[in-house]
């Protein structure tokens, strides 16, 4: 029984403690340099453990998940990242969101090949993120 508990609990504990960030950036038409730059910008934020960026034409949607310990600062991290990216690329239409729904939907969009579909979906998600009611 003790052995079984150890087998189950130790991996859980180790996974829970891992501080590895998973940053994924997808964009069919965007150049490699821009993608790498945005990835490094997200990676610089130590509180972010999952970041997914979808780039389609001028629209960029970045979904982040922050560490549970800094959950209360979620919106602050969101705003900081948004400001940094906007300063660097004023021509892009960026939205950084820490919403779980955005995380889910962007994960789905990572696989999507059709450029137009991605653009439409990103626009739709941005509208959804601004919804208050």
């Amino acid at each position, binding site marked *: 029984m003790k052995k079984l508990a150890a087998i189950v609990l130790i991996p859980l504990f180790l996974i829970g403690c891992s501080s590895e960030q998973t940053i994924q950036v997808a964009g069919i038409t965007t150049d490699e340099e821009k993608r790498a730059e945005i990835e490094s910008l997200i990676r610089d934020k130590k509180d972010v453990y999952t970041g997914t960026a979808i780039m389609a034409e001028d629209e960029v949607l970045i979904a982040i998940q922050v560490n549970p310990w800094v959950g209360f600062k979620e919106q602050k991290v969101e705003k900081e990242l948004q400001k940094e990216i906007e300063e660097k690329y004023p021509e892009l239409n960026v939205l950084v969101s820490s919403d*779980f729904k955005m995380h*889910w939907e962007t994960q789905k969009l990572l696989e999507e090949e059709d450029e137009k579909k991605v653009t439409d979906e990103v626009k739709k998600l941005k509208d*959804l*993120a601004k919804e208050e009611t």
Partner: protein
Amino acid sequence: MDPQEYQQIEQQNTPPTPYLKNCLKAFLVGGIICAIGQAITFLYMIFFDFTDKTAGNATVATMVFIAMILTGLGLYRKLGAFAGAGSAVPVTGFGNAVVSAAIEGKTEGWVLGVGGNMFKLAGSVILFGVGSAFFIALIKLILVSMGVVEW
């Protein structure tokens, strides 16, 4: 027998309250109710266009609705007897308070009985919620029009 003596005898005969056990029960049942609420939030987010911010309202409405049906079927009473505050503190307790008061007044007729009793327990909560929301919105409107904060 003087009052002190009586009190002593009373205390000796009262069975001890199992505080720890009650707390554990309330903790578990309250936690399970909250876990169900979280699951409903995720369902709304997966299958409908709800976000973290907007799914809350729909979840609360659903949880209250479920609690109301359970109260009507007489099941929530059993849960309440078992878990105590664990079933009363989450928002489901609100649905229970409305419907159980309505059922209680049913013998006195529909209007004076059900209608008059329905909000006996929960009415103050609703009034306080609506009233405070109105005043906070008013304060925010004033602050926004003065340019202190943004919407």
